[in-house]
């Protein structure tokens, strides 16, 4: 069971065979996480660096935990990107990592392409924990694992991604991954949150939330931020909730149960109301647990086989 990929930079172009291996391995580690003793010696002697140039709580903790449970030696480096002279620092960081001969780097960085840049200059496995508004492949893998856990298969399954698609790395990775797995996709949000040409990626596009809800089996609701890169692309969070927020009123109009997902952190009362996020149809906390399991799988598959 070897992956064809050497790094995990994004899900664009990652073949279905690789994703199947990752899911199978993820469910095995999920079983490990249900045991009283959750630690395995799989990555003993391997060194992993977690480089976070951008704030993260959930993803960083999830990787930390995955590394510890695999018995890897890991260190974390958090740098507030705005407080550093980023250019020289990034290049010097790359050179330093290269010199220190470590096995893998997990990196989050605010700039698209930074994970790829790192992989070109460093002789280590690179795992992208989010590069700006480009991709967040491990999030999409844990999202897909959570869908698979509930539905068993992706074929013909209708998944909507709702919110700020333009600034979302989660949306892009989910689109690539779910398309590869055979799901059908729709994106929904205000036109100012829709990136140009998104329809050419094989997704339906709508600005009508009811259309999205009626069409979907699963909705993945994205976090909404008022200010993005100095631009106010929506007038207010209040109006966003009224038009696009996932509320009981909207869900009651469709006569079926939708599976509710959210990559976190949640703005309760903006993109989704509390009673929906905490409802029986929400699999948001499964996503969190599956995040640790799938990151263990990814680390094991990419780093474990190294001599």
């Amino acid at each position: 069971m070897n992956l064809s990929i050497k790094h995990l930079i994004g899900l664009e172009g990652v073949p279905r065979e690789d994703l199947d291996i990752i899911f199978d391995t993820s469910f095995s580690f999920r079983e490990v996480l249900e045991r009283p003793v959750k630690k395995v010696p799989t990555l003993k002697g391997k060194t992993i660096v977690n480089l976070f140039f951008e704030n993260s709580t959930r993803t960083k903790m999830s990787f930390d935990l995955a590394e510890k449970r695999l018995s890897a030696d890991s260190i974390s480096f958090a740098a507030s990107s705005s407080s550093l002279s980023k250019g020289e620092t990034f290049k010097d960081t790359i050179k330093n990592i290269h010199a220190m001969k470590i096995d893998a780097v997990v990196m989050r960085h605010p700039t698209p392409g930074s994970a790829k840049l790192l992989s070109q200059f460093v002789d280590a496995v690179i795992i992208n924990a989010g590069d700006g508004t480009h991709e967040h492949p491990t999030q999409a893998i844990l999202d897909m694992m959570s869908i698979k856990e509930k539905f068993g298969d992706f074929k013909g399954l209708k998944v909507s991604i709702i919110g700020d698609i333009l600034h979302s790395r989660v949306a892009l990775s989910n689109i690539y991954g779910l398309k590869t797995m055979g799901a059908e996709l729709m994106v929904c949000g205000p036109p100012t949150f829709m990136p140009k040409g998104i329809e050419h990626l094989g997704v339906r596009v709508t600005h009508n939330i009811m259309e999205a809800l009626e069409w979907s089996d699963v909705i993945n609701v994205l976090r909404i931020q008022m200010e993005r890169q100095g631009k106010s692309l929506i007038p207010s969070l209040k109006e966003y909730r009224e038009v696009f927020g996932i509320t009981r009123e909207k869900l009651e109009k469709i006569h079926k149960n939708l599976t509710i997902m959210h990559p976190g952190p949640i703005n309760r009362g903006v993109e989704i109301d509390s009673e929906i996020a905490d409802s029986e149809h929400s699999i948001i906390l499964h996503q969190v647990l599956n995040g640790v399991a799938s990151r263990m799988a990814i680390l094991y598959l990419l780093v474990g086989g190294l001599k």
Partner: protein
Amino acid sequence: MHIHEFNGKLLLKNGTILDPFNNQEYKSDILFEKGVIAEIGENLSEAGMDKVLDASKMYVSPGFVDIHVHFREPGNEIAETLESGAKAALAGGFTKVCTMPNTSPCVDNEAEVLAVYRKTAHLPTDVYPIAAITQGREGKVITEMAILKRAGAVGFSDDGTPLANGQILRNALEYSQITGNAIINHAEDPELRGNGIMNEGLASTQTGLPGNPSIAEETMINRDIEVARFTGGRLHVPHVSTAGSVDLIRRAKATGVHITAEVTPHHLSLTDEYMKTFDANGKVAPPLRTENDRKALIAGLKDGTIDAIATDHAPHVIDVKETTLDLASFGMIGLESAFGLIMTKLYHEEQMPLLDIIKKLTINPAKIMNLTLPEFKVGEKANVTVFSADEWWVFSRKNVESRSHNSPFFGTEMTGKAKLIVKDNFIVNC
């Protein structure tokens, strides 16, 4: 590349002369003596020559003219000097270049204009400074255009910094009519461009990189055209990049606006798909656009909407390119790769006639900057570039005379290469 001083008699034999002044193509020998054309004709005698060069299977053109280069002197000599830039021009077949004024300090005063001439007088390349439109390139008060012209400025531009204020543009397009020089405005609406790094479209959606939409360029070109129409001033549009811009310029020309336009070799060769490599060398302003735009630029060149090809040669040291894309500087070097790309794309792929291509590289750009070119006549100064239309080569770092190496074209196969320049009393092996 080698530059030799040569004061004797040079016979260039059997070349095919491309004469854009008279729209002619013919086989002829040319005899140069002391930097001047002494004789043109077939089967000139080799007797008494100090040097005889065989140019059979070669074309002989007026030296190429590039009206848009950035040499970084004064201020950033680590990236390029006037001398290194002038040598890069020769390596690419260019004998005349016009430098943009965004140096530090900028070329907005008589002394800086004169300094460009003084520092390049000893070189074969003629380097003509374009001066700033506004003092300090701050977009507020226009420069002393008459004095700058007297000192030798050939055009006016705040290049890199769009003239956002329409009133200042109007002022410049009116006042510059006393000098007869073109106003060159880098047309990108700063607000619509925002923090855009690449063209906004499917490729920016796939890379997640902030998009710079085509409307940022088109809305400003549209404004510039209407102000030029209203004032009767002379507007030159640098580095046109979108299909919409080509349409706007085509309609403006048809309705009598005094407008000219240029396009870069990189916008003719690459598209925004290149940015999927995340190579910072593809980060240019305006950005690489779509295949549809690239085709429209070629159509605009063919039908005369776009007058000239200019490189926008923009050297940067590696540190500002080998970094994350948000921090990387805009621009790529272009002088040494330009002719190979032009021949590959326009001559070999698009079957554009050689004489038409040569006009876009010689008399058309010269006219935009009011430069007089020596013709193929006895008594005219030597100013020819000899090139092969069919030589296959791979562009590499060894072809680069520039101090900087920020090019996405290393490793690119090209067909067509500048081989030799005879300029005044210099012979240059490109």
